[in-house]
């Protein structure tokens, strides 16, 4: 009986303690990253390498995800449009959800899973094999050499992939509209373009920028904090993707609240 009562309380308690520690640590890491950027003190070559690596890792999965997001949103919107007879709203509904809401969330989650998790695993492995200590011993600052290039690469790539992902989502939507819903793709695309969705598109990019910041900072923070061998690396990756998912929904909420878009 006691367990039933104490259980949830202690779960919430422990979770909020963990949240505080993560927020504090991640904020300090962000501070150190910004200090290394002004004036720029980081490894340019490494930044280019990371940009390339992040792009190679994530473009395919983000594009394919975007295709399906567009497809799913067409199916769901068509369901409502058909019931209410408001066929003219199909383009608006699809464009709005894809650009401003579901598109950023799903693309952000995929990016976090692919790039963020991988980053935590990489840095975590470098920590447990003492490579990070070796860098320090060579008087190379791990922030400038490891973290800042990843920070830049992830933000830039997240923005580019969101911009491109929206295009792929529209393609997925058009293909599905044609095959499943019976709406001509050119009509749907015309509808979307006529719906004045520039604000939504920009909101999506703004979210992408914030996701890039949070994914890079959190995944580096968890990676550099790994303790204890293979098990430790696995656990850090697990924590990192969970924290990133929570951050994505939080950012999505705050941005949507601050910048209301729509008709």
């Amino acid at each position, binding site marked *: 009986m006691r367990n039933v009562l104490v259980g949830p309380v202690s779960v919430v308690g422990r979770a909020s303690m963990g949240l505080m520690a993560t927020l504090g640590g991640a904020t300090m890491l962000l501070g150190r990253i910004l200090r290394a950027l002004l004036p720029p003190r980081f490894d340019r070559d490494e930044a280019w390498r990371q940009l390339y690596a992040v792009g190679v890792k994530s473009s395919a999965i983000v594009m394919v995800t975007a295709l399906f997001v567009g497809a799913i949103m067409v199916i769901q919107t068509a369901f409502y449009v058909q019931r209410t007879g408001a066929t003219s709203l199909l383009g608006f509904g699809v464009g709005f959800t894809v650009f401003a809401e579901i598109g950023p969330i799903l693309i952000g989650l995929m990016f976090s899973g692919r790039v963020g998790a991988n980053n935590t695993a990489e840095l975590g492995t470098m920590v447990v094999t003492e490579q990070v200590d070796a860098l320090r011993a060579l008087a190379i600052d791990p922030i400038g050499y490891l973290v800042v290039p990843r920070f830049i690469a992830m933000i830039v790539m997240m923005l580019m992939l969101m911009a491109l992902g929206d295009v792929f989502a529209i393609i997925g939507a058009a293909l599905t509209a044609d095959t499943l819903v019976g709406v001509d793709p050119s009509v749907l695309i015309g509808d979307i373009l006529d719906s004045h969705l520039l604000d939504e598109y920009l909101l999506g990019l703004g979210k992408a920028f914030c996701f890039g910041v949070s994914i890079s900072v959190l995944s580096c923070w968890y990676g550099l904090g790994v303790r204890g061998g293979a098990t430790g690396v696995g656990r850090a990756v697990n924590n990192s993707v969970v924290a990133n*998912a929570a951050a994505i929904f939080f950012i999505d909420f705050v941005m949507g609240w601050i910048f209301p878009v729509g008709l």
Partner: protein
Amino acid sequence: MNAALERGFRAVGAPLVAVGSHAFGIYSVFAQVVMALLKGAVRWREVVRQSYLIGNRSLFFITVTLGFLGLISVYQVASQIQRILPDFTMMGPAFIQLMWREFAPTITGLMIATRVGSGIAAEIGSMVVTEQVDALRMCNADPVRYLIVPRTIASTVMVMMLTIYAVFIATIAGMVLADVVFNVSPSTFVSLSMVSGQDVVLGLVKALSFGFWIPIVAGQAGLSASGGSAGVGWATTRAVVASSFAVILLDFIISGIGYTVFDL
């Protein structure tokens, strides 16, 4: 010219081969799980323990993510409605219906893929690199049957339960926001009038298939881990990506079939 062509083929072919062999690996784990289920060789005590772990690990996480999703969705929809037709009576029922049909199962599935899928891969992956999986084999305990089958059953049940919980949380969050910001009374907002039995079934079928496939996809990633801590990290990454993608793909397939065949 020839060399360039060959390099081109390699660049396109290598990822395709990788995806193909990955898909085959997942299919083979799936087949083994189904065989084990048909034979009824299930460790029920472990199923109960895994269900508890899945619920315990993800309840707080789902509360946070679905809470924010409920808040922002209602906020955005209500802002639109306020500007064109200030009539909020349909908002709550439609919101709850859309949650059942689409967002509660899919977002819950994605969260479980992230939270539980990566956990399964990390756990099984570190068992592989520390040779514990080999030791299981030597004791004639089949790793798929021993490790993945209980997690599959547990996650199938738990994702369905958590989906129902997700609808509940998102509705509460949306209701509070609608009341405080747009003055929509909770009694107007909370109504199941638009939710048909078909919507409930569609949502639960989605939850069931996400729950079933996540441990299979993630467990396969864990079992194919190799080479120390880097291998475990890599397997965990792959599990997150592959199981999240599986959720999106299944969502598309089930929604598509639901829409075209059953007019859902």
